[in-house]
């Protein structure tokens, strides 16, 4: 009887040394990869660093732009760099344009052979507090070169 009891106690004693086992991290890469893929699918590449601040207006009828590679972006907003003043400025590619007339060489420069300026829509991303003067000037200049397809960028919510 005694021997048996001792045996049992011995078995219990085995557990005396137990500490908290380390967390198994072998699944961690999988979790991170899952997150990575989620972000790769759910997000889009930034097409440009903004030099102007743009708070887009909202419009319930705005439709997603289907082919972002086949569209040119004009950004109009208030310069982030304080040295550039407080008047609304136009950003083309990664530079602030001196004036609305700069959209003509910029737009024509982007036209690939075999295409016309007419074929490539222009998306206007404009801060909602910007006055219509500069927007209207840009549109008039685009009309000069028949680039008449315009997309007014807006957030699609009510």
């Amino acid at each position, binding site marked *: 009887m005694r021997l048996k009891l001792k045996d049992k106690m011995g078995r219990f004693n085995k557990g005396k040394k137990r500490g908290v086992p380390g967390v198994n*991290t*072998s699944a*961690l*890469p999988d979790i*991170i*990869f899952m*997150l*990575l893929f989620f*972000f*790769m699918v*759910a*997000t*889009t*590449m*930034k097409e440009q660093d903004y030099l102007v601040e743009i708070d887009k*207006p909202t*419009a*319930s*009828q*705005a*439709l*997603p*732009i289907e082919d*972002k590679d086949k569209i040119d972006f004009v950004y*109009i907003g208030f310069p982030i760099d304080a040295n550039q003043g407080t008047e609304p400025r136009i950003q083309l590619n990664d530079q602030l344009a001196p004036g609305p007339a700069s959209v003509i060489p910029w737009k024509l420069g982007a036209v690939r052979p075999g295409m016309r300026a007419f074929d490539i*829509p222009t*998306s206007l991303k*404009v*801060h*909602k*507090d*910007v*006055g*219509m*003067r500069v*927007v*209207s000037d840009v*549109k*008039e200049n*685009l*009309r*000069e070169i*028949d680039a*008449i*397809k*315009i*997309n*007014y*960028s*807006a*957030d*699609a919510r009510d």
Partner: protein
Amino acid sequence: MAKRELEEISAGSMADIAFLLLIFFLVTTTVEVDAGIGRTLPLKIDQPVDQEPIDIRERDILEIKANSQDQLLVEKKLTPIEDLEDIVRDYYTANIETETNIDMPAYTKIDPVRCQTEILKYQTLVTENEENVAAQKELDSWRAKLELCQSLPTQQYSEISKMAIIRLENQAGTSYGLYIQIQNILKKVVNEQRVKYCTEIWDKDYFALDKQNVEDQEIIKKLRILVPERIIEAKIER
């Protein structure tokens, strides 16, 4: 010879590599989806085309003026932006079946017989003078209308007055936000009408129409004749 065992590649840093990639994507991407309102500006006209003298009637033009204080003047009346949608809807639909409001554009019934006569008329004009661009344009538009009539179950439709134009006028200080609100309302009303026709006539969802599909392209073309979107923007005065 000592038996060397191949060491396993440690996968411990895999998480770090994945983290690095994750952070890279977090930094370089944005979640925002680009959306916007599409518009086609009127083409620049180099030389004036000879046209029949147009008589512009007051009722055909919806004038929307926005000033630097972001106030709206619709048909010369100060109007809050909330009321604009109903005015635009009324502009499009008031007289569509029967003449109910003589301040809104008139509708005329278009049927194949009418199309045929107009086609004949412009056909002779074009054969007389092949350089008559205006007549050629008319001829093309009447042919499209004939095609539309023939595809309708009733063989006819109501057409809004040819001179029905929405005229937008802004001032230099009008905010872009207000401008987009106006554009959005105009688009909304036109979309409503097109959605209605699209389901009634073709039993299809207007927003699901595929621009790459030839059949859907035809429907879009016809919807543009049924519910035209004619917006003129006045130049901002210097």
